[in-house]
């Protein structure tokens, strides 16, 4: 499976990573190389095999559905590039 420039552009868009148009051919080439490497998986007979979901079969532990944390607004916002009036600030989202 080879990734063409249009697919590379689409994947970059989905991943929300800006890629300059002149860099797309090299990126497409590298992604194709990696995918070709993965194609080996097609040699394996996986009939009847369940996809592995966890390393050790274990049931997630349950606990009472109560608030265990909170009231730390200042700490939550401390590392924000732009925090105002108790909120994370971002560019305008809705016109």
């Amino acid at each position, binding site marked *: 499976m080879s*990734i063409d420039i249009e*697919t*590379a552009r689409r*994947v*970059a868009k*989905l*991943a*929300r*990573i*800006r*890629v300059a148009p002149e860099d797309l051919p090299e*990126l497409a080439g*590298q*992604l194709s*190389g*990696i*995918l070709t*490497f*993965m*194609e*080996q*998986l*097609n*040699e*394996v007979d*996986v009939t009847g*095999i*369940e*996809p*592995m*979901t*966890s*390393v*050790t079969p*274990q049931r*997630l*532990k349950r*606990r009472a559905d109560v608030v265990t944390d909170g009231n*730390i607004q200042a*700490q*939550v916002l*401390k*590392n*924000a*590039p*732009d925090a105002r009036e108790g909120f*994370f600030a*971002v*560019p*305008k*989202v809705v016109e």
Partner: protein
Amino acid sequence: MTHANQLTLAAARDALRKGELSAVDLTMSCLTAIDAGDALGAYVHKTPDIALDQARAADARLKAGDAPDLCGIPLGIKDVFCTKGVPSQAASSILAGFKPEYESTVTTKLFTAGAVMLGKLNMDEFAMGSSNESSCYGKAVNPWKVDSRQLTPGGSSGGSAAAVAADLCIAATGTDTGGSIRQPAAFTGIVGIKPTYGRVSRWGIIAYASSLDQAGPMTKSVRDAAIMLGAMAGHDPKDSTSADIAVPDFEAALTGDIRGKKIGLPREYRLEGLSAEVTALWDKGADMLRAAGAEIVDISLPHTKYALPAYYVIAPAEASSNLARYDGVRYGHRAKLSAGDGITEMYEATRAEGFGKEVQRRIMIGTYVLSAGFYDAYYNRARKVRALIKRDFENAFAAGVDAILAPATPTPAFGLGEMGTTDPVEMYLNDVFTVTLNLAGLPGVAVPVGLSTSGLPLGLQLIGQPWQEAELLNHAYVLEQAAGFVSKPEKWW
């Protein structure tokens, strides 16, 4: 003359308890070595003030007779661990300026036991790499040097490996997603163990691939690894995948007796083109274990060949999800916006500026294999192959094998800038012997066993059954004693 920073963890512990050495003096000795070791690029954030405060507190505890094993032991902490108030960036520009408001479970446990933090250690960005060249801080350098070239300490825990090998700490933390503890340990002549998945809490460790990531110690000896793993391990309600299983006394398990144990040599690991010296080292390691009374048997792990391609589907898929959180909103870097830029432009510019090339590639590969139409063909198929890889190991253990012996890396340390510059897959092949364990969740330990003809350290890897780190470390201890590896890099830095 031996300086305090050159001590093993076990020797330092004993000297501290006997009062032959103070934690402050030991810490000062490490801090002096660190400042003289900048050429190694191991430390990326030094924390001498925190270290000395912790050392003074440790001395008080030692005096009071309340001293756990780690009390007063100076450690380097990989930059991937969140440490409260101290930069924690996973070597990525996208986390520039990030100082966590909380402490990871592992560092909390270590500090509660009295350990001293010397600083944060270099690594590949988001732990994605095998050479420590993809760090936003610049490369870390292997203290081992045999010609004019600078060699990689391996990756991703390259700073940890360089710091331990060069005595810039007594021991260090590492994390291992596809070999990131064991490969750098092998490249620098130290010991590194990746525990069973779930043995050590992942809470507060900056995530790469959640179903594969596991933290462990990187140390100067197997005994040190046993001591430090005991302090790191244990159930944590804050990590839902952490196992509620008792932590044994790993050090007490180092009896040196492996008589009657069955050690498997997987024939699929005899790769075509594997160098004669790695093959010879492997045979030598098997002889050592045989001489100690173990039975050596050939085993088959038929799906070995498919581990790397499965890993490079699963890990990027998980990374693309985990790294979606770096969007310039809550922490770290945000790109400067132009007039009229909306939130999508902010995301795209921030992530293009903040992530390095290898991280971008893995996020995009992960995005691709998870996208509609390809999910079954790549991601689900890889997860099925992963189940088969795990089953290979289960079959071997069910047939009575106690541990598996394999090479740790296909080669000794290579030169910085020599690998993967044109083809990223070339770099991936470094993980060929280590990645299978992460997929199966098994514990594995790299032990230095000899020197290459060029004079560089070579390690072997022992693989254990789930939750049997104690027995695994005992096997590693036997191998270590038999190999008698005592070489240290000659100081050039």
